[in-house]
């Protein structure tokens, strides 16, 4: 496989870099050449965050170019839309459905678009598939809201054409998380897999 490109978006503090790192290790353990692109520092403070995970034989740079992303995995709906120019035609967007309104919205200086508005733009203008689901609720169901990233990763593994098997990714997460949290993380992963299967009609 030449390259597979994932973009992870959300709000600083949501666990985006951890998710990127987990996926990077899963790809590495599957024998691929890996690049993960991150931004650290000030933008992590509740600002908009984007990370890139790329693997395959032909990856060199850390960033996915615009129009070349296979899947956007988003922790927050409008953050998926903010980086939609990265999605390739026919690409997939998995997003946690719960919005975090920016301070500017609360102050009345900006408005927050509805999920339907987002879906329309993503599906009609960018020819992508938009799947929003309450990953946080599933994480709470698994036992801890911080496993939202693992729910999303679980969903990601069900993407048609995703080069890593769900079992492999699950195993890498299992050996990576603190031993005390294995159960809740495995539950979160499985709930993400199940949700994606339902959404994709698998």
């Amino acid at each position, binding site marked *: 496989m*030449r390259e597979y490109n994932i973009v992870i978006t959300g*709000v*600083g503090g949501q666990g985006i870099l951890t998710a*990127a*790192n*987990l996926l*990077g*290790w899963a790809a*590495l353990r599957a024998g691929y*050449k*890996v*690049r*993960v*692109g*991150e*931004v*650290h*520092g*000030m*933008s*992590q*403070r*509740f*600002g*908009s965050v984007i990370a890139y995970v790329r693997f395959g034989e*032909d*990856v*060199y*740079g*850390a*960033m996915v*170019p*615009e*129009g*070349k992303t296979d899947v956007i995995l988003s922790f927050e709906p*409008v*953050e998926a*839309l*903010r980086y*939609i*120019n990265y999605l390739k035609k026919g690409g997939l967007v998995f997003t946690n459905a719960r919005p*975090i*309104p*920016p*301070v*500017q*919205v*609360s*102050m009345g200086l*900006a*408005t*927050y*678009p509805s999920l339907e*508005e987002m879906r329309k*733009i993503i599906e009609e*203008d*960018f020819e992508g598939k938009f799947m929003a689901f309450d990953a946080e609720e599933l994480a709470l169901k698994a036992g801890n*809201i911080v496993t939202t990233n693992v729910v999303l990763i679980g969903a990601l593994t069900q993407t048609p054409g995703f080069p890593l098997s769900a079992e492999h990714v699950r195993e*890498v997460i299992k*050996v990576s998380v603190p031993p005390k949290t294995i159960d809740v993380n495995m539950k979160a992963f499985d709930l993400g897999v199940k949700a994606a299967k339902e959404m994709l009609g698998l």
Partner: protein
Amino acid sequence: MAKVTDIVLWDKPGERVLLLGNHAIARGALEGNIAVFAAYPGTPSSELTDTMAAVAKKAGVYMEYSTNEKVAFETALAAAWSGLRAMTAMKHVGLNVAMDSFMTASYMGVDGGLIVMVADDPSMWSSQNEQDTRAIAKNAGIPVLEPSSVQEAKDMVKYAFEVSEKYGQMVILRTTTRSSHMRGDVVLGELPEEIRKAKRKFGNFKKNPERYVDIPAFQRKKHPWLLETVEKFREEFSENPFNWIEGDENAKVGIIAPGLSYAYVKEALAWLGVENVKLLKLGTPYPVPYGLLEKFFDGLERVLVVEELEPVVEEQVKVWAYDKGLRIPIHGKDIVPRVFEMTTKRAVEAVAKFLGMETPIDFEEIDKKYEKVSKIVPPRPPSLCPACPHRNTFYAIRRAATPRAIFPSDIGCYTLGVLPPLKTVDTTIAMGGSIGMAHGLDVALNGVPGEEERKTGKEKKIIVATIGDSTFFHTGLPALANAIYNRSNVVIVVLDNLVTAMTGDQPNPGTGDTPHGPGKRILIEEVAKAMGADFVKVVDPYDIKATEKAIKEALAVEGVSVVVSRQPCALYRIGQMRRAGEKWPIYHVIEDKCTGCKICINAYGCPAIYWDAEAKKAKIDPTMCWGCGGCAQVCPFGAFEPMEEGE
């Protein structure tokens, strides 16, 4: 996925791991048998520094968080002059702080290998400018290594130590935000026995005043040596593992790609499906090896240099070509943008233009479609955290000192105080700049202290500067001495959150911790008193009224007032509490009491508070509240209360 600090210490040569660029450099330093590491943290270099701090004891390496980059450079230089391998790391603007010593040290050379790791920030992801370290290195005559992958970032360190010792000159390892903050697959090398056994290394300083004293008579003899050494490196770099020629050797067109630009050019060529190109991959942007240029240019009719920021390589290549009498077109900044970072898209566009091709996808079409999106996506700039003590201090300052006040500020998380609703930052320029700026504004606007014409009463402008604890020690100290000495009338609020927060919670003299155990803690208020400040007070910003009162008291004083607003960084504190399994109070809004006045949103602006447009009430996101209780102090109607257990 093991812990990074474990991986960096792994005695597993040949193991394939995923490391951040900065982590890989730390591993490289250990593989290169480093003895001393000193740095002041600065994004995007900080993870290197923190990793060295975490492994120092276990590897027998001395590591310190120095008070600024100049001190760090001198600490490392002294080690190198004593024959030890040493390294310092800094962000690009940190080199400006170290510059005084750096420029002169270049005449003197080193005995032990010395690496100055400088992390540039094209696109200014977390910086105030995008200066190009390669251009500074050229001015200093110091060779530069620049990786194109995480593997190279690691491997270059050991090589850099070796060539630094071979020619007795320090070497710059230049990264960018992307190479420092890129994770990539890395194959680990061998760790030397001293590192594995944590054996402390001791240096040997041989007195040699003609070399180590920089009086003019001595320095005049050394400048020619510096220039000769550049040429030796130029020759050395013609045959090194980080420079090579690849692609079609019979091609008529060639591309030169230094550093990480090589990665983007490789992708661009693959995406465009171009094969009949010769490619010069350069890991040494300065000095460009002429021997390699000789081979590369053979048979070429047109050349493109793809590099980020300044045309450092392009100009060297053009000078060489001119002197050779070569008159073929050499393109660079006429095609490749000079501002902001390189991307695959930019590389594709540049290469396509150079070769007269179409781009593989229509980027303009994407941009056009995106116009609609950019109109409806609300901005989400970074903000001060929930429970951030700085927010409370800024809020108190605004209440105590507006509307006539001017607010010089400094470099740290608190620079975010520039954003609405706090807007308590009017100027920032560089580390420690707030106090110099405050003093200068006082003189410019209020006149000379002691003179009759000096403005008084309502005519006088109020100046309240803010500066963080670590920044205070970094470069605030000389500015404070200056303000006190010159009889300034300003209030300086030190935002003391007991950690160097923005770069990732490093210790500093105000905390007293060091990677080797307890250091000696320095109290900011004691420093201010000893320097002769006219008013010194310590307050807790979680008590907003008391903070406001202290600032009012400070404003009433003729002279320099220092208010130390002390409360641990909330992000740091919550992290520690989480790990310890401790709980904190979570506030909520009593709906009946909330009148919808929006003071909490429009004047205070905690990110945990949002506006429920339907109910026309403020609400708190319980997952984001870190329990400082500031909202309860700000609300005139008592609508914020901590939740009861189980609510």
